[in-house]
């Protein structure tokens, strides 16, 4: 596929870049302390943090990937939103933010240090730091690859240009710059992709015509009609739906373990809430983010459903992949070419570019903070004046971007190394939520319990991988290298169950080891860090729209209604 850009499209792209860099420049004079640079001086209003919270997560892999899943699996993909995101976002806002924000920890690993001990913090900080530069490199690689394919742009030039732009605006304006640009990117993504969906819906002939076409797709793939337009009805058995998962795996693996593990403990998103200007704003950040998150399936999944519907009825809508199936990753690019004339095409591509850069910038800001506070300040060079850490922050931003570039080239040369690393990060992440849950809600849990529980959970995830395989795969990277105890219908089911096992092992091991070891922190030291030892927040005098619990309940209600409508 080749897209011809006109000069108007380049003008739009350049105007956007000018604004992005301009915002960094305008914020430069406010970056006086390390807290300004890493935490935005804790001075950002709730709505800005909320939109940045969602935007940092909305990388382009998500936009492209969710549209691909929409075509491949239909509306079941929305489980990643209504089950796999909203409940966890409500939980972190209502129940966990009081400890993150109230403890004055500057990062998620630092919370672990305050609550447990140094070794737990360091384990989390190191794995997180590796993971973020690696993800940022992957974003860069994906961007360069896509633009090479679509526009014929030089791979190296794309990498360098995107890296330099992200570097400049973060170097100048720190976290504030990243957050402001994420808000800009949020609106750009919505305003750039919404007309695509509207035109697609018009083309397909409205919702009922789409359901009709998708029933055809379902039947011709050997499933019951409605499989593509009903999210729960066909999850009784893994073989009844194209995703190959059953409701329990979705509910527990995705909805509980994976989603809570990500939204409640990943510093990349939590950092946006920590930058808020008050406790109330910090708690409302994920709740405000949950509202657009809930509606995003219409923006990112629906295009995939439209594309496959049109592809099935008219043919030729999507290009064919090497395996003889439609190339699902081309949903968004195909629609851009088909529906957008020069002008709008520039806007659409700018939105795509923006989503790549927001994903990258989010990783870089989280990385430089964790590196500076949790690794450099605590292990390498403590007790320096604040100005020293500000300088280190600047330097490490450059270094982080350089490592990301190296990762991008590594990804282009050795696909296996990338798969391997992703696998290992999966093992480390799966059990994390158990540690935080016990840390925040059970004062008896100890540092040894948390650390060894985490290790046990990580090992459990690794063992699960080594003993199971998804059906029909033979490569060692998919698992089963120590023998095959169980065969899952698809890789996704394997992932969901790996998470369930890892979490359970970590949860049980942490409790067991905690009970066997002595507490090292007194009740007084744990004040503000553990639920039972922290004074309750009273907000009865606030109007309802400023009370996190009320907003959280409304958001949950919205998610439940959406699940029922598209049952």
């Amino acid at each position, binding site marked *: 596929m080749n897209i011809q850009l006109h000069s*108007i499209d380049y*003008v*739009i792209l350049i*105007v*956007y870049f000018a*604004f992005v860099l*301009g*915002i960094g420049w*305008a*914020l430069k004079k*406010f970056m006086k302390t390390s807290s300004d640079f890493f935490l935005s001086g804790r*001075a*950002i*209003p709730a709505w*800005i943090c909320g939109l940045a919270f969602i935007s940092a997560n909305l990388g382009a892999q998500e936009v492209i990937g969710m549209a691909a899943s929409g075509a491949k699996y239909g509306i079941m993909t929305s489980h990643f939103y209504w089950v796999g995101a909203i409940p966890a976002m409500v939980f972190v806002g209502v129940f966990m933010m009081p400890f993150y924000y109230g403890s004055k920890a500057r990062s998620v690993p630092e919370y672990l240090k305050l609550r447990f001990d140094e070794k737990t913090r360091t384990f989390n900080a190191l794995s997180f730091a590796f993971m973020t530069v690696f993800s940022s490199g992957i974003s860069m690689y994906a961007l360069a690859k896509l633009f090479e394919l679509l526009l014929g742009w030089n791979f190296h030039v794309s990498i360098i240009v995107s890296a330099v732009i992200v570097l400049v605006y973060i170097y100048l304006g720190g976290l*504030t710059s990243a957050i*402001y640009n994420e*808000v*800009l990117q949020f*609106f750009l993504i919505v*305003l750039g992709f919404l*007309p695509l969906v509207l*035109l697609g819906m*018009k*083309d397909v002939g409205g919702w009922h015509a789409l359901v009709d076409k998708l029933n055809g797709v379902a039947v011709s793939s050997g499933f019951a009609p409605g499989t593509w337009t009903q999210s729960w009805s066909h999850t009784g058995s893994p073989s009844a739906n194209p995703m190959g998962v059953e409701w329990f795996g979705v509910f527990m693996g995705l909805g509980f373990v994976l989603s809570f593990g990500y939204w409640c403990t990943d510093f990349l998103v939590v950092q946006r809430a920590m930058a808020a*200007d008050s406790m109330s704003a910090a708690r409302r950040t994920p709740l405000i983010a949950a509202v657009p998150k809930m509606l995003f399936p219409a923006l990112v999944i629906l295009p995939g459903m439209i594309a496959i519907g049109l592809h099935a009825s008219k043919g030729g809508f999507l290009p064919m992949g090497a395996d003889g199936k439609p190339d699902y990753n081309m949903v968004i690019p195909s629609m851009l070419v088909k*529906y*957008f*004339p*020069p*002008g*709008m095409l*520039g*806007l659409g591509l700018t939105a795509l570019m923006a989503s790549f850069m927001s994903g990258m910038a989010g990783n870089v800001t989280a990385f430089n903070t964790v590196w500076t506070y949790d690794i450099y300040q605590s292990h390498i060079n403590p007790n320096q004046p604040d100005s020293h850490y500000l300088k280190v922050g600047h330097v490490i931003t450059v270094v982080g971007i350089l490592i990301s570039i190296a990762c991008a080239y590594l990804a282009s040369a050795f696909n296996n190394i990338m798969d391997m690393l992703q696998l290992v990060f999966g093992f480390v992440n799966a059990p994390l939520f158990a540690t935080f849950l016990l840390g925040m809600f059970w004062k008896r849990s100890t540092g040894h319990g948390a650390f060894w529980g985490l290790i046990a959970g990580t090992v459990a995830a690794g063992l699960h991988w080594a003993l199971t395989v998804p059906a029909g795969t033979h490569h060692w990277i998919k698992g089963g290298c120590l023998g095959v105890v169980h065969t899952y219908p698809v890789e996704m089911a394997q992932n969901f169950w790996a998470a369930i096992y890892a979490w359970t092992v970590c949860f049980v091991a942490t409790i067991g080891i905690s009970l066997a070891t002595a507490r090292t922190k007194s009740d007084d030291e744990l004040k503000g860090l553990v639920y039972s030892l922290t004074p309750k927040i009273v907000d009865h005098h606030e109007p309802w729209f400023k009370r996190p619990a009320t907003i959280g309940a409304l958001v949950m209600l919205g998610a439940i209604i959406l699940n029922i409508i598209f049952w």
Partner: protein
Amino acid sequence: MQLDIRYPMGFLFGFLGLIITVYGLLTKHLTLGININLWWGLVLVVFGAIMLLLARAGKARTP
């Protein structure tokens, strides 16, 4: 906050909207019978204007 994000946002979307609207008026390209450049350009202009109005209202409230 030090810099009200609604100003740059208002200017960016207003400006992009203007460019796209004018381009739509000049080229008259139709997608499914719609001049999408013209109409969506206008949507962007309105969005930009709302952002600028909100920024001004916000400034008036906090002296």
